[in-house]
């Protein structure tokens, strides 16, 4: 098993290199550079000589492959440089102060989606054909059809602008500030996760409920509680983990739309800013962070899966 983990980590390094390479070249393929955008914001155009000077100062005149090599040389020592836009802050500083916002959004979304999504799914499976089942289907259809950003804007419009239940001022980090500000972003961010969890939970539990070993469990004279929790749920969990894992990976990385609409200064928001500003180091840093987070989450999902299902083993037979 340790060997398996090492293999996966090695693979992860490979993925990081590949992603960073592709991103780097794509990034430079897009017209305009970091300074052009800054100038444009001040309604000026960067004169060529100034641009040349800036470029040589920052090493942007070197051949791309050399730039990439230099970047990676620093990156492996976890030095991701300074932002081109916010020139007095390092990438690490930016990401470490902004990522907690994304994390909090992701965390709240996860809790909300699990309660609503899995709750509806379990209800639908156990009380097949009841109002709970229909409600679950209705909610899922809604989540499927409604684009998250439209929903977010609608919520914002209704609850913040018209009803003034919450303000449009953005959020505070942590739980000591105005927690209510997190409600709308969490709900908007949950459309996708609720849909996935409701459908998979319902499907998984329905399948397991009808399986032969549940019938055996009942024939042993076990109570319904025991049958439900130990025999049904335990088995139903594995497919849910399979989809839940990647979903979680997406959540911890932050969401562009939601963060922008609700003015949450998370990684997603900063990434968008970085792209618009052609802030090369921020773009690279964020991409690498995301790739890392997603890979680790996938690995953890696989390990949890192996823990849950004894039939799955990553140890090859001798």
């Amino acid at each position, binding site marked *: 098993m340790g060997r398996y983990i090492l293999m996966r980590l090695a693979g992860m390094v490979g993925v990081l290199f590949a992603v960073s390479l592709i991103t780097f070249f794509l990034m430079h393929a897009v017209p305009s550079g970091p300074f052009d955008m800054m100038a444009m914001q001040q309604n000026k155009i960067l004169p060529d000589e100034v641009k040349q000077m800036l470029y040589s100062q920052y090493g942007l005149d070197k051949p791309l492959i050399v730039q990439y090599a230099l970047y990676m040389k620093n990156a492996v020592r976890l030095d991701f440089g300074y932002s081109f836009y916010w020139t007095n802050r390092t990438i690490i500083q930016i990401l470490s102060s902004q990522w907690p916002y994304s994390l909090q959004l992701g965390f709240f979304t996860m809790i909300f989606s699990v309660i609503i999504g899995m709750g509806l799914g379990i209800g639908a499976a156990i009380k097949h054909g009841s109002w709970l089942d229909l409600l679950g289907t209705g909610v899922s259809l809604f989540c499927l059809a409604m684009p998250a950003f439209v929903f977010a804007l609608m919520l914002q419009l209704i609850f913040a602008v018209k009803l003034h239940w919450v303000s449009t001022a953005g959020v505070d980090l942590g739980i000591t500030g105005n927690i209510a500000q997190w409600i709308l972003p969490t709900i908007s961010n949950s459309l996708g996760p609720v849909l996935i969890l409701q459908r998979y939970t319902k499907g998984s539990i329905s399948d397991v409920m009808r399986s032969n070993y549940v*019938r055996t469990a009942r*024939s*042993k*004279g*076990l109570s319904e509680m025991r049958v439900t929790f130990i*025999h049904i749920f335990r088995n139903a969990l594995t497919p849910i983990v399979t989809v839940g894992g990647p979903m979680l990976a997406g959540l911890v990385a932050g969401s562009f739309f939601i963060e922008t609409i609700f003015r949450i200064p998370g990684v997603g928001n900063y990434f968008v800013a970085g792209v618009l500003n052609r802030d090369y180091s921020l773009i690279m840093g964020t991409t690498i962070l995301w790739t890392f987070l997603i890979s680790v989450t996938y690995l953890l999902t696989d390990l949890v899966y192996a823990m849950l299902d*004894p*039939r799955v083993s990553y140890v090859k037979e001798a």
Partner: protein
Amino acid sequence: MNKPLLEVKNLKTEFRLAQGTVHAVNGVSFTVNEGEVLGIVGESGCGKSVTALSIMRLIEHPGYIVGGEILLHDGDQTIDIAKKSMGDMINIRGVKMSMIFQDPMTSLNPVLNIGYQIMEPLKLHRHMSDKDATDYAVKLLERVGIPEPKLRLKEYPHQFSGGMRQRVMIAIAVACTPKLLIADEPTTALDVTIQAQIIDLIRELKDELGTAVIIITHDLGVVAEMADQVAVMYAGYVVENGPSAEIYEYSQHPYNRALMGSIPRLRKWPERLTTIEGAPPSLTSVTVGCPFEPRCSLRVERCALENPPLLETYKGHTTACWVAQEGVREHA
């Protein structure tokens, strides 16, 4: 030995489906005595499995038991299982009656180890401590022929072969020494040599523990090996019931006789096998008259009009047939 243990009286179970109501069990009656083996035979769709599941009250929506009594004589009391609530059934299943199923590959929980699954009924019904339950589980595994039982307690079902899993199922079923064991096609999914081992095991345990057994199968050979009494089912009815030797040598019901003639025997070499015209009836329609009448070569007018009840044609041997009751007892 001739004390009745289980009396099923006019049991009716139906399934309410979109296409119609399927009358899977249509008024089935039989008795199982203590320590005796009753074999229920029939082809697919005859209602034998549904009967067994009804006795254990494992029938779920859209299935419902709609009539009859299932009387279990437990010492001095008699309980009607058909009328018990699910809460009551918890104290009956696994303790007074247990069941083993057809497909050993899917009948055990894949994520729990074997020890846990065996010890569940021991801890719940017999209130054993962890240590006692573990020791007893090891003894059970040994008794059912699983080598190295201590080690295998920690293993998972997928690490066992089909025959081994069926043995584990048997161990679970007899853990609390039930008075009745229902075996639903326990050997159908197994190879012949493994099947023989399982049949032998069930017979031995039955003798040791004094358990009565209901064995359900479509294999007339298996029933001949195991059963003292045999009930033949067709289209949700019991059409013949009697001692094993009687049913085989002197079968009365035309369906049963045709069935006996249609099976190839190891050492008899007929030119052709007996076949039965047509197909079993659809269980959604409620028929008037004998359900076998459309396919019966011996039918008379009365057969299409009245459904014959089970009446005694010979000592201890009952048949549901108008023609047979008037006939003489002859060799099959």
